[in-house]
């Protein structure tokens, strides 16, 4: 009898709280979006599963001694996992498109306006009763506008870990929603004639330039913005492994073994931050709202800067490619390509959009470094 009672007390039913049930539903929704609608499945599936695991009553998976707790402490608190993801991203990224046309870096800079405008928005939301964000939290939320998952997780883990779950979910969700969010903004700000602009073919880039590029970026970062050195440094290391051509074993390890294994653990540990008390509150609504705003503003800033550059540029620039500056590689470059084809079925913008796109990865890492330097 005693044992039966113990067993009953050990069931989940006897320990159910409504918050946990709701969080399990949130996890299930994320998994549904990942599998059915292919919303960034590599991250949202593990995040959703981690959310369910962490909210199983009594199992204690996210409490000291539990698997998800260990993973979080080892990989997220320390910043190791997002940095290793950046290593893999560096090894997977071909910077040729931006090396062939360095002006594209400007578009990658412009699109970061989404980050800094959202920062003001987050602070302004303090006027709304029940919503309160410190400057650190506002900065962590703003980085969603960088459209770069690991950057958002890294910055958030360093300056606002209490918001990490909601920020990561918002960042990856909006990255998945890029094909929905960006096109209306792009069409609103451009004329059909502008969208039909054809761009000149890119010149090929020498192997030496590709090898020297990551080293140059690293040195500039060291001189100008050392707080961005962890993120930018790992990105550059990965890219150097890739382009050097003498360490294919290591480049492949960074692109496959390391990034795959870390992605599973990163997703689980981020999902484990989705507790009812941390997620089911009005702040999360604010984060979701601000995230969408950040994407819209970033897209608009990129497109407008491209229009401005087109005025002064010798070679024509299609303003659509400015939208790719938010990064969300390679999703937003594909969106640009699709919009370009819609305006002119012969206008293939994919390679041109890859320039601002990879520049945007650097841009948001730089923005994260600035926020780290000034806010924390």
């Amino acid at each position, binding site marked *: 009898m005693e044992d039966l009672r113990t067993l009953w007390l050990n069931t989940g039913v006897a320990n159910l709280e409504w918050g946990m049930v709701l969080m399990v539903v949130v996890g299930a929704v994320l998994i549904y979006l990942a599998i059915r609608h292919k919303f960034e499945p590599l991250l949202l599936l593990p995040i959703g599963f981690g959310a369910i695991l962490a909210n199983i009553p009594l199992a204690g998976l996210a409490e000291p001694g539990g698997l998800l707790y260990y993973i979080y402490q080892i990989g997220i608190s320390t910043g190791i996992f997002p940095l290793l993801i950046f290593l893999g991203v560096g090894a997977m990224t071909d910077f040729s498109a931006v090396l062939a046309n360095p002006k594209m870096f400007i578009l990658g800079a412009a699109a970061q306006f989404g980050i800094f405008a959202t920062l003001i928005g987050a602070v302004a939301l303090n006027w709304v009763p029940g919503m309160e964000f410190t*400057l650190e939290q506002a900065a962590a939320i703003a980085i969603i506008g960088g459209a770069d998952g690991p950057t958002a997780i890294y910055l958030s883990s360093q300056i606002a870990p209490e918001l990490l779950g909601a920020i990561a979910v918002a960042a990856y969700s909006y990255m998945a929603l890029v094909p929905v969010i960006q096109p209306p903004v792009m069409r609103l700000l451009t004329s059909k004639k502008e969208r039909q602009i054809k761009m000149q073919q890119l010149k090929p880039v020498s192997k030496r330039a590709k090898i020297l590029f990551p080293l140059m970026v690293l040195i500039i970062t060291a001189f100008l913005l050392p707080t961005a050195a962890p993120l930018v440094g790992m990105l550059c290391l990965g890219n150097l492994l890739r382009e050097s051509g003498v360490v294919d074993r290591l480049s492949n390890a960074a692109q496959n073994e390391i990034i795959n294994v870390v992605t599973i653990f990163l997703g689980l540990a981020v999902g484990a931050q989705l507790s009812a008390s941390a997620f089911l509150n009005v702040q999360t609504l604010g984060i979701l709202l601000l995230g969408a705003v950040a994407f819209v503003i970033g897209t608009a800033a990129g497109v407008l800067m491209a229009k401005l550059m087109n005025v002064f540029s010798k070679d024509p620039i299609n303003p659509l490619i400015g939208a790719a500056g938010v990064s969300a590689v390679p999703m937003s470059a594909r969106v640009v390509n699709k919009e370009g084809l819609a305006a002119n079925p012969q206008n293939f913008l994919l390679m041109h959009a890859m320039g601002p796109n990879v520049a945007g990865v650097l841009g948001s890492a730089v923005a994260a470094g600035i926020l780290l330097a000034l806010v924390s």
Partner: protein
Amino acid sequence: MQPTMSSMLTDAATLMAIGMLSVFLFLVVLTLLVSALTKLAPMPASAGNEKRSSSQGTQSEAGQPNAAQMAAIATAVTQYRAAHESPARD
């Protein structure tokens, strides 16, 4: 301790100004240096060929495959990948 709303807004606005300035500064410097880099390290005329021949040298003496072989090869790789990806408990 708690900052007032208006001071926070001022902080945020300053942050935005300095932040965007810095991002632009960083990426403009990068633009200039990359422009210099691509001028200093231009594309050699024969780079593409060089790469191809070196990979031939280290990996195969078989020469260029003909069309029939290419079909067989494509299928072989497809099959291999499919086999590789269909997991079997061992």
